[in-house]
């Protein structure tokens, strides 16, 4: 009947995501600027192509056309580690195998998002998919650099709140 605290917003996940995100921020912006795949080549434990596929998968799970690749890279960069490499590679291999089953050379070779999403729907109950999806909820949306893309302003205390800055400025009602 009872379920142990295995998924969702457990303390353990919260802390691990927070530290993964924090560490990723240290990499700094612009580290992928040189060329399209430069960031993938900078992987330390994952094969660059595996990492590139992981980044595409992240975008296909939470597609925001106005968010640049860089933020998706930061969101999944924590998986490029000794302890995660094996599980991530196995998951990406399964993704590629599913793509090959549909007649494509690999997941990255599928040009249309619709085809890739169909593959993801087929594996959405898997531990791998849920791990990547769950991690993105904080790993992607908790990056302060994506907030302005959504219009979100973050904290306002340092500016004195909105009492004189438009808390009631709606003009279209």
């Amino acid at each position, binding site marked *: *009947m*009872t*379920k*142990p*605290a*295995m*998924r*969702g*917003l*457990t*303390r353990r996940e*919260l*802390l691990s995501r*927070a530290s993964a995100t924090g560490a990723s921020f240290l990499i700094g912006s612009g580290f992928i600027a040189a060329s399209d795949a430069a960031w993938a080549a900078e992987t330390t434990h994952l094969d660059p192509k595996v990492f590139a596929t992981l980044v595409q998968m992240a975008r296909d*799970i*939470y*597609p*925001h056309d*106005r968010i640049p690749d860089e933020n998706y890279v930061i969101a999944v960069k924590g998986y490029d580690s000794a302890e995660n490499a094996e599980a991530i590679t196995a998951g990406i291999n399964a993704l590629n195998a599913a793509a090959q089953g549909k007649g494509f050379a690999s997941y990255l070779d599928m040009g249309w998002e619709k085809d890739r*999403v169909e593959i993801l729907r087929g594996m*959405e109950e898997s531990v791998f998919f849920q791990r990547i*999806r769950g991690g993105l*909820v*904080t790993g*992607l*949306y*908790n990056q302060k650099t*994506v*907030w302005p893309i*959504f*219009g*979100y*302003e*973050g*904290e*306002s*205390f340092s500016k*004195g*709140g*909105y*009492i004189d*800055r*438009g*808390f*009631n*400025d*709606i003009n*279209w*009602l």
Partner: protein
Amino acid sequence: MAAPFDMNDDSVVVIIGTGAGGGVLANELAQKGISVVALEAGGRYMPEDYINDEWESFGQLAWTDARTTSGDWRVADDFSGLPAWIVKAVGGTTTHWAGASLRFQEHEWKPATNYGEVQGANLLDWPIDGAEMAPWYDKAEKKLGVTRTNGWPGLPGNNNYKVLEAGAKALGYEEVHTGRMAIMSHEDGDRIMCQQTGFCFQGCKWGAKWSSAYTDIPEGEATGNLEVRDHAHVARILHDDEGKVTGVEYYDADGVLQLQKARVVCVAGNSIESPRLLLNSASSMFPDGLANSSGQVGRNYMRHLTGSVYGVFDKPVRMWRGTTMAGIVQDEARHDPERGFVGGYELETLSLGLPFMAAFLDPGGWGREFTTALDSYENMAGMWIVGEDMPQETNRVTLNHDVTDQFGLPVANVHYDDHPNDIAMRDHAYKQGMAIYDAVGATRVLPTPPYPSTHNLGTNRMSENPRDGVVNKHGQTHDIANLFISDGSQFTSGAAENPTLTIVALAIRQADFLSSEMSKGNL
């Protein structure tokens, strides 16, 4: 004797928890000259410490010790280890609450009488009523600085409220206003006016919202009669051969087990931890846990049925600006079985920042249906549904002996199944909430599932007859005269209103009773 108190001082009242119940009770007793030791599991944070960043703040304040869940409520699937969004800190969940301060409606004190037989519901009338509580509500409203009481003005409406108000009025709703809020709408003493900063859930950095952390607790400490020990996690309440409680064992900040003796023990650890503590205090004399001769400890867990509605518009709203709970529609709070359910619900504005919106809008959701909704975040308005859920004996907090916390104590399992009345009411509220936004031109509406519970109620309920509940009308346990329950777990029913004002009113009243019983030599 003045604080700090000796571990062997058995003249003190020990209060477990420092939130709306425990924090207020501690101060009220201290003001009357009674020696109090308040034990708080969390740390101490003041407004300057609060963090206006949702995840960071969650890491700072939330109670994230292990818990488990079961039942058909969606929270058990979406957040299996996090049944409740409540706080572990001095001040408890009064740091996190939004500030809505509503009195119960008269009929809500007597749900068994007024709602009649509801199959599967364990309805019971409270042994108190509105007339009994009126003077205590008066004191509570004055203490909290509740707007629209005592001649204080309402708060100004923010953008999110203006959308709600326009839609509600277009539908013909009449009881629509910026709420009765424990948020200062005027300058007074140490609490400054609301600066419309948002982040009410993360602790008010202005101290404009009432929290016991920076009002009642320091006021009580200033008397010299109150000692607050933080990072003190209570493991067990002890008793003697006569069945009177004698003290509590707790783990201190270093994880060392301590024993504080007590004349009276008051439990105010919220509706999950309070029954857990009574159950974990089982002994050969009380094998089913303390104060549990009725078998009702842990049962009748209520959480308000809740749910949210977000509306997307073609122009910006920027709902996060200003007071989080900025206004209310009260027309549906009445009891009117014509709608297909008993009891009623309030609709209150709510906003989440982008990070929490991503986590709570449709937990587990992904793909473009999800992301296109978030893409319109700036153009969203939001409201929260707070409705009376049915007490059910099988909705309960039990000990999960398979999972232990950092001290090796069995954790609480929270089991909740929605009652058909809860589902009917939530469906009605979703429909009305969506109609409100449609009436002002929403291009998309999002009926959002319940979040982890912040209103946790009922697990040590108040009853006239000792057979039906755990405590009497003063929060004194039926079984043990010097053991009291001082939090929302003593609620006999949930009513439609946010519970804090009632918890505070009950705590002020309990302090009066305790002091009078102590001076009569009854305790």
